[in-house]
């Protein structure tokens, strides 16, 4: 039987940090609990993350799994208009991309929300 879910933001079950690497932003998403990590691995596909960021990510998205710390590292290619010193935006280094990631709405199993 399927478990009941609730629509919530990723923020509720994960935290994150982002930074720049050339024209790329990396976003490390960390599960707040051990139980949440397998769920994140299932739902946070590279395709879903690419779709979530829309115009903020120009290139492809790569995902690397870090089972040792319950984290997923995403590389968002082509996100900084040529790099952190060239990009004209206020967030030229992608520092707030972590928070942007945590905005994502998901159907989260209730057992992970208690």
């Amino acid at each position: 039987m399927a478990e009941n879910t609730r629509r919530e933001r990723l923020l509720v079950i994960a935290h994150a940090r982002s930074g720049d690497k050339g024209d790329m932003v990396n976003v490390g998403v960390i599960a707040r609990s051990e139980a949440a990590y397998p769920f994140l691995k299932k739902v946070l596909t590279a395709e879903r993350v690419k779709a979530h960021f829309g115009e903020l990510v120009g290139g492809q998205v790569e995902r690397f799994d870090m089972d040792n710390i319950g984290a997923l590292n995403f590389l968002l290619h082509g996100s900084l208009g040529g790099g952190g010193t060239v990009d004209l935006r206020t967030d030229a280094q992608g520092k707030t991309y972590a928070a942007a990631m945590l905005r994502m709405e998901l159907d989260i199993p209730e057992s992970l929300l208690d």
Partner: protein
Amino acid sequence: MKDYIRIGAAQGFWGDRPDAPVDLARHGDCDYLILDYLAEVTMSILQRQRQRNPDLGYATDFPKVAGSLAPCLKEGLKIITNAGGINPIGCARAVLAELAKEGLEGVKVGVVYGDDILDQLPGLIASGEELQNMETGEPLEGVLKRVVSANVYFGAAPIVDVLNGGAQIVVTGRCTDTGLALAPMAHAFGWPLDDYRLAASGTVAGHLLECGAQASGGNFSADWESVPDLARIGYPIAEAYPDGTFVMTKPAGLGGMVTQAVIKEQIVYELGDPRNYISPDCVIDFTSIRLSDDGEDRVRVSGVRGGDPTAFYKVSMAYKAGWRTSGTLTYTWPDALKKARKAREILEARIAHLDLKLDDVVFEYLGVNACHGSLVTIPDEASINEVVFRVAVHSMERKSVERFGYELAPLILDGPPSVTGFAGGRPKPKEVIAYWPALMRKTAASPVTDILEN
């Protein structure tokens, strides 16, 4: 005798809190302080400073910081920093002069240089180093004439050499941030640098320390409101053991906190492929890192695996890439966002009317969606009280950017009402410096070391 050393990270970048080093030395029971001053763009700024004055070209904050640490130096504290920029000898001399003012004589300052290859670029290219952009694959020829700085990232080895030679302070040029932390471990414990498991552990410690208080509760996304006393945050310390394990901690008497969640956030910071973290000293598998609790504000790090380094040094170059400027205006209720959008429309029409050669123009509504763009839904536009309208432009031509700078202030008299916040004069053109990362065979450059003494 204690079997560990404590390494404190006293500056995460040039611009970090100036009193942090003294706080950390006094409260942290540190054997070593490491201070990182160099960001990618910093080297180009320092090159220009040295062009104007050959005595400059280093992080001028550091000699004063060293002076403020004189009492701790008397007690045996050692300091390792990349504050030397493109003039490590000049920096070391300034440090010795500052220490002399504090009545401290006989301090040995180790210097590491040889990383500045700007003048050697034509020769290196002639000898077969392509120095193509490692992100885009583009050849260097297209920008070579505009390159303003070029530096090799050296690792821990030359720092270990000068520490073994008796240096109490080490001033380097462009060394890796991680090398600043690995070097004191290799020196204190006699690690051979070709033991890549140990080198990997020290490098992970360096990665965790390199952004200062980001490893002790600063910029903490999981639960920022629970972090104690951010006004006196204690910068992080790695308590390192001879077997390669270390404990991340912080001074007990200061603010901040060290938990597994805090350390995990710094593990992923600016991380690429976690199984393939490349430093000049070794290649590290970040999926091997094990964390465990070790008491209050103490997280033990173990299990780190690493392998042979690559045959290449990373080279960081900076080159001139045109001109930019930016400015803001503040619109208030009623219809704050609508007015800001109108300001954008007017500026777009002005750019077209004046036929300005701008290759990039960015409009932002700060307070609404400047950072997260279309991810933001605006539920009730009429309730928005204020919007900071920001515009930024780029051109390869200075004069187009300069002319655009005349267009913002007139909006106050010529545009929508309830606008304010224009101060500080017309936005002026600033030269854009872009970054060019490349790889170079390790055989093509060698670090040079020296020890100065007053």
